[in-house]
């Protein structure tokens, strides 16, 4: 357990939806939010949606957690996919919200098993498509 963890609970639905994304691949992304002292699923993206649709679905001045299933082609011309975990904590959000999300992240990540790349972003440039691509390879 990390020092100064918030003790936030995680709704079972989060795990379930994540499993569906991982195994059945029926979602492109999942956005989670903290509501009434637990982490819950806020939005689901269907597989046709793009990375841009995903970033547009994140609020500009509120924190969220998100999982994105990223498809790409490697240098050897091989089709692959990787699951990204993104802690979205924009600089413009309230201190209280930043604190809540940062102190609950460790616990939440333990609940969802199978994340391949993790990043934290405080402005859109820190999670641009280029950065996602470079982290995937």
């Amino acid at each position: 357990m990390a020092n100064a963890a918030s003790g936030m609970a995680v709704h079972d639905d989060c795990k379930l939806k994540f499993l569906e994304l991982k195994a059945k691949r029926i979602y492109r992304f999942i956005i989670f939010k903290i509501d009434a002292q637990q982490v819950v699923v806020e939005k689901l993206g269907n597989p046709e949606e793009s990375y841009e649709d995903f970033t547009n679905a994140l609020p500009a001045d509120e924190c969220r957690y998100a999982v994105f299933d990223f498809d790409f082609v490697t240098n050897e011309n091989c089709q692959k996919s990787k699951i990204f975990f993104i802690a979205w904590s924009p600089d413009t959000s309230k201190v209280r919200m930043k604190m809540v999300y940062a102190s609950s992240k460790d616990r939440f990540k333990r609940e969802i098993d199978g994340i391949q790349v993790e990043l934290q972003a405080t402005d859109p440039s820190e999670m641009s498509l280029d950065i996602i691509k470079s982290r995937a390879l």
Partner: protein
Amino acid sequence: MYGGDEVSAIVIDLGSHTCKAGYAGEDAPKAVFPSAVGSVDEMEVDNPDNPEDNSGSAPDLKSKGKRKLYVGSQALGFRRDHMEVISPIRDGTVVDWDIVENIWDHAFRECLLIDPKEHPMLLAEPCSNTQQQREKAAEIMFEKYQVPALFLAKNAVLTSFASGRATSLVVDSGGGLTTVAPVHDGYVLQKAVCTSPIGGGILTDCLIKSLEQKGITIKPRYSFKRKEIRPGEFQTVDLDFPDTTESYKLYCQRAIASDIKECVSRAPDTPYDDSSYSNIPTTSYELPDGQTIEVGADRFKIPDILFNPSLVQTIPGMESFAETAASLRGLPQMVIDSINKCDVDIRRELFSSILLAGGTSSMQQLKERLEKDLLEESPQAARVKVLASGNATERRFSVWIGGSILASLGSFQQMWFSKSEYEEHGASYVQRKCP
């Protein structure tokens, strides 16, 4: 588990220079007062061995008799004969718990007006705190103050979380110490923590010495009386108090010098050197006794000590510290060393989230200079980003603010180290509850 009734918790961040205390959930600490306290030896008459030889350091409790401690800005502001100013903290760790208890007492009973029995306590602690220190803190809190619940949170983690990051490199430059601590997913990577004794305190002392060399002596506030003899015209009369201790005089001078430092100094854009700053325009500052001084090159030279500690050697009167300074590294080097001690996988993330916190970090241009130096020295692929809250209060109190939010979260109420757990498992259980 602590039952979390509607009583709000108390958050205390006891730093080497200032103690911050207040109610959880608020934006800023209610009480901010010096960590140093005044001490008058009550055995003075029977025990005339002079107070000089232990000035500035904590006296050995056992060899001395009873002493009376004066805590808080007001009690310290009043000059008393033979009052020494002593600090409970040296090099970031508590060396005198008796003083700490007095500071806590002051915070609870005189500043916040609360009964500690009724409030859970969240204490911010330095990353370097040892197991013994933590157990001692728990013991005093539960045994002496009978607090219902306790939590010890690490400084660096609180700062990191309050900025929305679970992973970051926290550069905390305070009064007595500068600490660079990598935090990964809420864990402090202890092996990579770098500390240096260069903080606001050293900078203030350097400024005093440097001004003295130029013939400017800062008169402590108690040593003169200033009267308006005609409208707009003042007369200063020196007063003599032969029984004032050296440490009290220094404490008063530091208070003034620290204000000069905060008002006029700024970090230079490039490393300081005497020749290029010899013609720099000066800034004037009016001392409490009415004399106006001009501060020139020192405005830049003093802050540059953070980047280049060996500059201390060029300041006359700082010889005692010069030897230590020679072996110290500047801020950018500490950052790089600390990052290089971390796992390769997280280095790039650390480079892109360097957080500035602590009182000294409010120095003008400090953030820009650090970022510039790091860009030059960091590996090419790294994307360097130094972050600091634009709000000076948030920057200075980031640790306290983090603790305040954490302790007020509904979900956090199950995380406290409760009194019943203490009674069942003892003080060592603190390691389990507050890892």
